[in-house]
Each structure stands twice: as structure tokens, then as C-alpha cells.
């Protein structure tokens, strides 16, 4: 059974594409909207692939460990010289993990969307984009070569753009979509340059390939290759990492993600929390053999990751838009993942990716449920005491918050703790940043929960009137995700803790992912179990105290944050305005670009147009002179010729009688003349 499902693996990306086609054609045809038809197609197009993926997962787990890497060729695609890329899928533990996340959480979010978008007129268009996104994401994850991955990479960027700007009649939302697209372009450019540099160097070494499987051995030939004063692998890794910062919203290219919240909330959950933004993490995991070769690049990644985690967490304190808080929290958590990748704890990174997908999707969907209940209100300052009205949403939201804050035994605790543990082994400073960010996360998440669900109600009369718990199609995904957020952590119980409870190989995920990953040669000295226990307890203590602080500050002692904000208004303003990064980018990049455009436009108008106009003027004068000559002399000559011809015609026309005989007489006369002249 599992094997049979595995043979259907090609349907996994194909069905969402098909669904997108059907719904797209339906939306395009302008036929009368039949909602059940649309969402049945869309749900089937993502749920059947989920079942197939589960089957494939079971099949692969039944295989021996060393053969858990299957390449399924679909059809040949590019074959140019040494550049051979087929449409084929690489099914290994890493891609299967991501596939399960995409199809599983994707199915839940599709289901959620049925309720959330039930009043949307562009229903079919919405599901078209959503299915198309799933297709692109699956191609990204399943592709067995870099070009395929890049197609998915660009495809998800496109769908993200389409979905952020879904309500494109609102110009701010359309602009947010464009921002996401343009910022992603910067990253994608670096990504493709990095890849081409890699390919080009490999070709010069005679090992040109774009297949991930073959790259694994091919890159070993790059050891010691220098480009300028840097090692080539480091440059390639850094370029690819810049690509990842674009897609996964890291410093300095994170600015698009908070704006991306302009899209529908399920989209934020699926694309901007659970799947697409983790593409960068996946890419590093997929290319771990390359990144493991360059400790310098890993250090950069780790630093950027942890700094982003802290940086975004601080912004989270001051935001009042429920989705913006979650967006910065996403940036922060993505920072953790990159931090994990950077300290070569790839398993921990993927583990956090997984748990983050659970609790962040749940949080986003919960916020969607809140927004839905509040008739579109997103400001948490105008909420409060919603727990009585939205019991299910409240429960799931609260559990997910505990998960993200890292409270034992929720999933976030295990993944975050593993990251911090590896960071501690790598560098104490990174660990410190990570712990600070974790504490911050606990505080601002609790701030948000408190402001939303507890305290006194600040809901307006009218919104109060419509307040209702969301329909079942929205709460079921919430409950499933909350369940996963609570128990998902047991997939990766640290060895030390498992050992404590007498379990062998308790870190199931690490064991499962091991074959797909390649770790750096020099293993770091690991601190003792005792240190690990201490760190665990310490971070748990930090998290719990953070939660308590957050809870107390925003219920009982609301005066403290207010007085703090009043006491240091500059700092508050600075953070509230997100360190003015957007303004900085606008002043430095956007405005200068526009200024350059203006300058070029001016140059075009004055110089180029001047040259063109000058040429035209000279031509005009020449034309005037030549026209005069033409009229006087040439025309005179022509007219003279015409007059002579015309005069000749007046005489000659007399011979043109139209009678055959006249012509015959003339011909005969001519013959006689010739004959007499010749013989006479």
C-alpha cells in the first residue's frame, strides 16, 4: 500500500497545479461562483497529495537507512552540454519532512480558508493562487536539481506577490506585494549568481552537475579553490545565503515580511509563517555539504540569524497590529533557524522549522479567527477579554503561545533548547543573544495574548455586537495545529533528556534526517550533560519568568510599560518605528534610485533629446535648401521633359487610330522602306 502510494509521488506537485488550472480557468471564465465546487477542487488538490506523501513517508521509513534517497525521474528537461537537468524528484528524509509540512499544514489552511474567505467574491482566484503556491513550494522542495529548486523558489515568490496583493484595489496592499517582490528579487539575484559561480567553477574542474545528489561528491573538489582572497565555497555560500535572507526575511532583507501581512490571514499562516519563508532554511539544509565546507560562511549565517532573532523580537514589543506582532515574531523565529543552521546544527534548524510551522500557523490562524470575529479589526489595543467569546480560539492560541515561548513540555521548548544548546557550544555570545531573544519572545507574545484575550474589554460597541466564535471549518485546523504545537516537540527529545528518562535514540527527528545532511569535519567539543541540564532549566526559567512578566505587565501593572514609554520616548519611538529601517532603505536605496531615474530622465530630455532635435533642425534646414533646388531646377527639368513628351504625344496620338489596318499599313510601309533601302 505504502509502496503503491510512493509510485504516485509525481501526483504530489501535479495535483495542486491541476487544481490551480481548474480554478484559474473557472475564475477566468467569469461563470457564476459555486463555492462548494471551488473549494472541493482546491481541497482535493492538496489533501490527496498529503495522503500520498504520508504513504511515501511510510514507504521510505521501511527502507534501510542508507537507501532512503530515491530519485524519481519524471521526464527529461534541459540537456545542454554538461548542464543536465531533468524534471525529477529527490525523495529523501529532508524533502519528505518538508513535503509533509507543506501538504499537511497546507490542507489545514485550505480548510480554514473555506470559512475565512466565505464572503470573498474572488473565491476561485484565491484558491487558484493557494494551489499554485503549493505546487511551486512542492517543486522547490522535491526538485532534485538546482534549476528545479530555483523554479520553485521563483514560483513561491510569484505566488507570495499575488497573494499579498490579493486585494489589489487597495493601493497600500498592492504596494506591499510589490515590495515583497522587489526585495525578493535582490535575494534571488544573489542566489542565482552564487549558483552560477558554483556551476562555473565545477565545470572548470570537470565535475559540472546541477543534481543535488551528484553535487554532494562534486563539491569536495572545490576544497581550497580561491577566488581573490576568499575561498570560493565561502563566496558561493554567502551569495546563496543572501538569496535565503531575501526569501526567509533575515537582516537586511526582512523588511518585506511585516508588510506582507496585507494578504489574507490564511496566506500569512501558510506562506509567511509555515512554508515559504522556511525555503532558505531548507536550501541550506539541502546544500549542507556545501555550507559545511565553509566555517566562515556558517559564522556569518549564525551571526545574522541570532542578531535577527533579537532584533525582530525587540520590535515585537511595540507593535499593536496583531498580525504585525506575529510577523516580527516570525522573523525572529526564522532567525533562530538560521542561527541553528549557522552553528551547523542542521537537525535543530529543521526541527525548529517543523515546530515553528505548527505553532506559528496556529497563531496566525488564531489571529485570523480573532480578526474574523472582530469584523476586520487588527489593533490589539482595541481588543481585550475575548476569551469568553472565543473559547476555542483562545485555548489554541494560548497553547501555541506557550509553545513559542518555550515552556516545557510544549514543542517550542525542545527545538529552541536544542538550538541554544548548540549555540552555547559554538559561542557563548551567540547563546546570550539567543536567550535574550527567547526571553523577549516570551514577553511580547504574552503581551499580545493578554491584550487580546484578558484584561478589561476595549472592544467597540459595534464590534461587540458581531462578536462570535468562528465556524467549524476554521476551528478544526486550529485544534489540529494546537495539538501538534503541544506534542510536536516529542519528535526531537534531546539525547541527554531521553537518556535521563531511559530512552535510546529519543531524538527521532535527528536520526531520521541524518542521511540527508553533511556536517562539518571538525566536530565541536560538546559541553557535558550537566551543563546541558543547567542550560535547559535556565532557559525554561527565563521563558517562564518572561511569560509571567508579560502577563503581569499588561494586566495588573499597565502603568509600568506606559511610564517606561513616557520616560524614554526616543527609545520607544525608535523601536516603534522599527529602527527606521524602512525609512533608511527609502532614503538610501529607493530615493537615490528614484533620483538616479530623475537624473537619467533629465539627461534623456536635455542631452539625448537635444541631440535628436538638433539633428532634426539641421535636417530641416538642409531639406529647405534642397527643396528650393528641387523645386527650381529639378522640377524644371522634369516639367520640361514632361512638356516635350506631352507635345510629342499630341503629334504621335494622331497615328494611334485604334484601327488594326492603320498599324498594318505603317508596318508594311516600314518593311518596304527597309527592303528598298537594303536591296533597292
Amino acid at each position, binding site marked *: 500500500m505504502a509502496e503503491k502510494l510512493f509510485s504516485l509521488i509525481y501526483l504530489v506537485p501535479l495535483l495542486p497545479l491541476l487544481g490551480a488550472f481548474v480554478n484559474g480557468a473557472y475564475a477566468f471564465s467569469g461563470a457564476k461562483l459555486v463555492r462548494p465546487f471551488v473549494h472541493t477542487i482546491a481541497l482535493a488538490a492538496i489533501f490527496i497529495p498529503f495522503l500520498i506523501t504520508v504513504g511515501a513517508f511510510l514507504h521510505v521509513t521501511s527502507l534501510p537507512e542508507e537507501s532512503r534517497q530515491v530519485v524519481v525521474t519524471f521526464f527529461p528537461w534541459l540537456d545542454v552540454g554538461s548542464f543536465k537537468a531533468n524534471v525529477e524528484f529527490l525523495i529523501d528524509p529532508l524533502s519528505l519532512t518538508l513535503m509533509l509540512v507543506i501538504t499537511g499544514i497546507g490542507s489545514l489552511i485550505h480548510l480554514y480558508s473555506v470559512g475565512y474567505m466565505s464572503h470573498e467574491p474572488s473565491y476561485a482566484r484565491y484558491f487558484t493562487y493557494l494551489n499554485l503556491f503549493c505546487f511551486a513550494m512542492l517543486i522547490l522542495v522535491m526538485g532534485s536539481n538546482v534549476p528545479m529548486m530555483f523554479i520553485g523558489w521563483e514560483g513561491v515568490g510569484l505566488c507570495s506577490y499575488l497573494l499579498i496583493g490579493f486585494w489589489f484595489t487597495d493601493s497600500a496592499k498592492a504596494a506591499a506585494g510589490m515590495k515583497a517582490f522587489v526585495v525578493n528579487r535582490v535575494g534571488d539575484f544573489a542566489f542565482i549568481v552564487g549558483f552560477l559561480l558554483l556551476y562555473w567553477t565545477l565545470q572548470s574542474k570537470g565535475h559540472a552537475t546541477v543534481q543535488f545528489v551528484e553535487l554532494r561528491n562534486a563539491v569536495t573538489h572545490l576544497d581550497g579553490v580561491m577566488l581573490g582572497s576568499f575561498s570560493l565555497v565561502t563566496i558561493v555560500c554567502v551569495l546563496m545565503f543572501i538569496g535565503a535572507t531575501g526569501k526567509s526575511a533575515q537582516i537586511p532583507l526582512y523588511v518585506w515580511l511585516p508588510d506582507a501581512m496585507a494578504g489574507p490571514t490564511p496566506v500569512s499562516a501558510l506562506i509567511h509563517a509555515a512554508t515559504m519563508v522556511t525555503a532558505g532554511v531548507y536550501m541550506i539544509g539541502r546544500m549542507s555539504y556545501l555550507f559545511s565546507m565553509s566555517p566562515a560562511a556558517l559564522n556569518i549565517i549564525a551571526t545574522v540569524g541570532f542578531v535577527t532573532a533579537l532584533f525582530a523580537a525587540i520590535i515585537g514589543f511595540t507593535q499593536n497590529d496583531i498580525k504585525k506582532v506575529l510577523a516580527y515574531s516570525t522573523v525572529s523565529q526564522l532567525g533562530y533557524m538560521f542561527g541553528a543552521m549557522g552553528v551547523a546544527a542542521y537537525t535543530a534548524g529543521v526541527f525548529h522549522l517543523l515546530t515553528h510551522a505548527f505553532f506559528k500557523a496556529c497563531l496566525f490562524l488564531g489571529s485570523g479567527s480573532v480578526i474574523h470575529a472582530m469584523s476586520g479589526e487588527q489593533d490589539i489595543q482595541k481588543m481585550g477579554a475575548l476569551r469568553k467569546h472565543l473559547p476555542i480560539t483562545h485555548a489554541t492560541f494560548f497553547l501555541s503561545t506557550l509553545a513559542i515561548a518555550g515552556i516545557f513540555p510544549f514543542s517550542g521548548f525542545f527545538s529552541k533548547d536544542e538550538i541554544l544548546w548548540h549555540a552555547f557550544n559554538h559561542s557563548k555570545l551567540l547563546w546570550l543573544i539567543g536567550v535574550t531573544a527567547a526571553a523577549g519572545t516570551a514577553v511580547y507574545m504574552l503581551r499580545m495574548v493578554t491584550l487580546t484575550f484578558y484584561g478589561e474589554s476595549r472592544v467597540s460597541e459595534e464590534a461587540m455586537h458581531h462578536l462570535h466564535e468562528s465556524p467549524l471549518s476554521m476551528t478544526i485546523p486550529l485544534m489540529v495545529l494546537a495539538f501538534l504545537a503541544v506534542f510536536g516537540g516529542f519528535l526531537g527529545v534531546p539525547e541527554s533528556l531521553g537518556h535521563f528518562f531511559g530512552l535510546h535514540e529519543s531524538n527521532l527527528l535527528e536520526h531520521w534526517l541524518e542521511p540527508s545532511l553533511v556536517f562539518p569535519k571538525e566536530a565541536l567539543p560538546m559541553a557535558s550533560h550537566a551543563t546541558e541540564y543547567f542550560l535547559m532549566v535556565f532557559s525554561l526559567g527565563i521563558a517562564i519568568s518572561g511569560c509571567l512578566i508579560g502577563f503581569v505587565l499588561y494586566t495588573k501593572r499597565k502603568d509600568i510599560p506606559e511610564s517606561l514609554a513616557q520616560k524614554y520616548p526616543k527609545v520607544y519611538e525608535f523601536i516603534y518605528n522599527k529602527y527606521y529601517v524602512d525609512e533608511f532603505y527609502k532614503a538610501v536605496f529607493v530615493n537615490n534610485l528614484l533620483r538616479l531615474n530623475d537624473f537619467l530622465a533629465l539627461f534623456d530630455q536635455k542631452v539625448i533629446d537635444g541631440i535628436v532635435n538638433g539633428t532634426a533642425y539641421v535636417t530641416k534646414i538642409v531639406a529647405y535648401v534642397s527643396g528650393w533646388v528641387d523645386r527650381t531646377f529639378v522640377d524644371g527639368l522634369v516639367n520640361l521633359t514632361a512638356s516635350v513628351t506631352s507635345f510629342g504625344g499630341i503629334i504621335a496620338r494622331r497615328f494611334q487610330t485604334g484601327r488594326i489596318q492603320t498599324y498594318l*499599313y505603317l508596318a508594311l510601309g516600314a518593311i518596304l522602306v527597309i527592303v528598298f533601302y537594303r536591296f533597292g
Partner: protein
Amino acid sequence: MPMIELKDIAFIILALITLGSAGGVAFSKKIIYSGFSLLGSLFGVAGLYILLSNDFIAATQLLIYVGGVLILILFAIMLTSKIGDIAVTNKSINWKVAIPIIAGLACFLISSFSGDIWKVADKTPYQSSVSFIGNALLKEFLLPFEVISIVLLCALIGSIVILKREVK
């Protein structure tokens, strides 16, 4: 004193038929009479071909000219004039000018070959020319033969196109 052979008598008779009929063509007042006179003239020429031992050409002359062209001409006459108008359908114009010119031309042409200026080969016994012409047409004259067939086809199509009424 050369003998007057039967051949010479035949030549004289045939020449008289030919030229007399041609005169009829040239001078008759009615177009239909001209047409019938042309028949005699063509017959006479066919007879002269036989005298020149070209039996195949004579037969072709009869088949194509008498059987084809002449019938065509007669049809054209019938198609283009009303029966009652026959008397006035063949008037001559400028004949007072034409007769002296033509007469002058004839005198000049006749004078140009008077006297014994030609090399004449020895007489050969009569042989049917059919096999020679057949061989020639399929050997050295094959290309002209094919070209003339195309010319005929073109003439056929051309006359149909010219006569076709315009589709309104």
C-alpha cells in the same frame, strides 16, 4: 522540250484552286462566302503538300485546318452576326490604296527569286513521311514537341478564360 507530266497538270490545277479560292476569300462581299472559299484554298494547299510528297502534313492540314479551324471560323461568323446582315458583313476599306501596295510587294517578291538561283537536290523516290516525322518528333524535336503541347494547353485555357462571362 520537256514533257508535260501528269504531276505538272495536277500542280497547275491545284495552284489554280488555291489561288482562285484565296481570291474569293479576299474579294467576296459576304463573309460567309469568304469562309467557304477558304475551304477551297485549304484543300488546294493540302493537295500541293501531297505533290511535295508530304502526305502526313497534307492529312494534318485537312484534319486541323478544314476540320478544326475552318469550322471554328464558321461558328464565329454565325455567333457574331445576324443572318439577315450577311450581305454587309464583309466590306472592304481602303482597297484603292491597298491594291497598288500589295501589287508592288508581289512584284518585288517575285522578282527577288526569278532565275535559277537555288541549289536543287537530286530527286529521291517517294517515301511516306510519317515514320520520319514520328522519329523526329520523339528524338531531336522532342523539346519543341513538348513546348508546343504546353502552348496548345495555354491557348485552350486562355480562350476559355477570355470567353468566360464575368461573375457578377
